[in-house]
């Protein structure tokens, strides 16, 4: 069973606009959430994370929001840039167990 779900396989946005990537989880034991970015032929790279005791974490153009009651997190990228085009994975962890979503391919058009 997929405990972490990214229901949008792809997203396309215009350069300069906001990109919003969504992720849902089912296991209420998850207490730490992460976003990874992956370019073709490379490994995933850590982007941003949030603890379950917070509802928002910001790092430059990237902001992650957590809604624990809805078991939902989202990644906002503002403004979006062509170099942001990649596959984005959300992940959730509890103790030593980390689960990943299937990924969303973001394309930022110039």
């Amino acid at each position, binding site marked *: 069973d997929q405990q*972490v779900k990214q229901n949008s396989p792809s997203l396309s946005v215009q350069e300069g606009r906001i990109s919003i990537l969504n992720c849902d989880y089912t296991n209420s034991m998850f207490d730490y959430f992460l976003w*990874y970015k992956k370019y073709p032929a490379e490994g995933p790279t850590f982007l941003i994370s949030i603890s379950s005791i917070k509802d928002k974490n910001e790092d430059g153009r990237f902001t992650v929001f957590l809604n624990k009651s809805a078991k939902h997190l989202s990644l906002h990228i503002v403004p979006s840039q062509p170099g942001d085009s990649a596959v984005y994975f959300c992940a959730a962890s509890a103790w030593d167990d*980390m689960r990943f979503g299937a990924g969303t391919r973001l394309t930022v058009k110039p």
Partner: protein
Amino acid sequence: DAGITQSPRHKVTETGTPVTLRCHQTENHRYMYWYRQDPGHGLRLIHYSYGVKDTDKGEVSDGYSVSRSKTEDFLLTLESATSSQTSVYFCAVQGVAKNIQYFGAGTRLSVL
């Protein structure tokens, strides 16, 4: 890149042959992980290690074994490769921040 090197980067093999993938790290990380990435599934944990000779199974461990005889090396072995094991394999280490894992560049394995 957390000092992770995966080898080989690409491999093509035949069904029924044994295959070993290597993950080498240079920063003395205690925890190491093997994942496979498949379309529609994201990254799924195969096995992990929490120290030399200490390993445990992950979500999709059937058909795979691992060994860690040195801190820096974590080997993944497919004893008898099957076409369902065609995938991209990633090694990861746990960073200083406990919940963050750092990944290698991956090995693309094709089993014909």
